[in-house]
């Protein structure tokens, strides 16, 4: 690992922030409206069938669960598509790497920026849920941090996918075989305790599940097991971060 120059990270971040000003409307819209629709659909749909899930009102269960959905959508997709477009079509990364910025700093800066957005967008479903009866609590102030940490991992995962894939069309394989199952089996809309044992084990290696649990516990009270969830998210973030850097370097530097 080389040194991450603050000035280099700053350059990458400033580029993103300045660009974000020109498309923040559309990106904020898609990242917040989609999970909110899930929240409302499941909240009203299932909410009329079930009242309590895991000791929580269903709106509380799903209102905290969709935070993770918002984090996932606002991190992994922008990372996959944005990264691919920036190096393959816009040649933006050629310009950045010609400046005193190394691939490691480029990837880290991009992931930090996406994570920052996820940390923000991730809170939107929770705020909507408050309007529908989720009780505010002090622990909610920790939620942006969890969303940021989780978003960083997913951003790096998305960059890794973009670095590995030959064409943008191949992204649909990843979306349907990896992201959709992870999204569904995370305890967002229904508790994983009702699933067969193998699926429960699978859920435990799903970073999104750990994000869901941490968010729920932040809102309703932390438990000892949250250290495991936190540890998992940190480890996931670190591993995909390093992988994203090494694969991106292969892609960008001949």
């Amino acid at each position, binding site marked *: 690992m080389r040194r991450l*120059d603050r*000035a*280099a990270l*700053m*350059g*990458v971040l*400033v*580029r993103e922030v*300045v*660009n974000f000003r*020109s*498309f923040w409307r559309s990106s904020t819209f898609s990242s917040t409206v989609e999970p909110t629709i899930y929240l409302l659909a499941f909240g009203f749909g299932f909410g009329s069938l079930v009242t309590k899930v895991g000791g929580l009102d269903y709106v509380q269960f799903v209102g905290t669960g969709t935070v993770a959905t918002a984090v996932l959508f606002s991190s992994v997709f922008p990372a996959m598509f944005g990264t691919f477009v920036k190096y393959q079509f*816009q*040649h*933006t990364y*050629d*310009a*950045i*790497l*010609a*400046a*005193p*910025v*190394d691939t490691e700093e480029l990837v880290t800066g991009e992931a930090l920026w996406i994570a920052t957005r996820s940390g923000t967008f991730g809170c939107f479903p929770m705020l909507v849920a408050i309007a529908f009866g989720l009780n505010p609590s002090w622990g909610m102030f920790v939620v942006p941090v969890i969303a940021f940490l989780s978003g960083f991992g997913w951003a790096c995962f998305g960059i890794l996918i973009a670095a590995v894939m030959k064409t943008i069309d191949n992204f649909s394989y990843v979306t349907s075989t990896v992201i959709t199952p992870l999204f569904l089996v995370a305890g967002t809309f229904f508790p994983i305790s009702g699933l067969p044992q193998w699926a429960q084990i699978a859920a435990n290696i799903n970073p999104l599940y750990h994000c869901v649990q941490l968010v729920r516990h932040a809102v309703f009270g932390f438990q000892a097991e949250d250290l495991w969830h936190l540890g998992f998210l940190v480890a996931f973030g670190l591993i995909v971060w390093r992988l994203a850097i090494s694969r991106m370097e292969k892609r*960008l*530097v*001949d």
Partner: protein
Amino acid sequence: MSALAIRMRGAVKRYGAVTAVAGLDLDVPEGTCVGLLGPNGAGKSTTMRLLTAQAIADEGELAVLGHELPADSKAARAAMGVVPQLDNLDTTLTVEQNLLVFTYLYRVPRAERREAIERALEVANLADRRKAKVDELSGGMRRRLLIARALVHEPRLLLLDEPTVGLDPQVRQELWALIDRLRSEGTSILMSTHYIEEAARLADTVTVMSHGVAVACGRPSELVSEHAGREAVEVYGAPSRLLEVEDDARARGWPTRRTGTSVTILRAEEANGEMPDGERRVATLEDVFVLLTGEEIS
């Protein structure tokens, strides 16, 4: 011997079975403009990528502004500006925003950012288009902005990769004036091009590249007199006639080159014997280029 902005010795870069750069020596003395002239596929772009450590040489020594590459490439990149062949501006941003982003990427101190942007706008003559989105600019303006963007940190060395490819003749001349001004102000320049006229007009010295190596190096006028002599005779005619002229010239030991519609006999001033009828003209850098690289270019 003045200091070298770029010093490349025996650089080799392979891509699988293809050797893009095959033992290249290249010097850019500080304050001069060196033209890297070669046909498409000669290894010019790979050479440019080696200089920014976006490609890592398999063999050879490489130093930019006194920094050894690739180990010390970041320091080198901080002191040079790069104008890429492919336009990679942020198209939804304004002219000014594009420059602002690069003042950060090139670490211009906060207090000097405003001034750096103004200076770059001035150099590229874009001050009155500062608020325009890149999408709204003409091709020539975009290229000027690419150059301005590479200058925000007042680099000592500028790399220009095919700076005028695909532009109108008028726009091209406008860019030449801009590049010439930068050189006269002391910026060292390495410019890759496959336009002969561009190299002849702007470069103090030219390195002719073919198949990844330098096949000739010197001042444009020296290269012409050394390789093509003073005068050339261009013979026009039907393809069969051109073949005849070529065969005849070969038999007499006269160097020739094809120009598509004609055959050119070089070193006409030294030729003894009967020259075929044709247009007598002064030998050019293009003659050298075609002679050395064996390839026709636009």
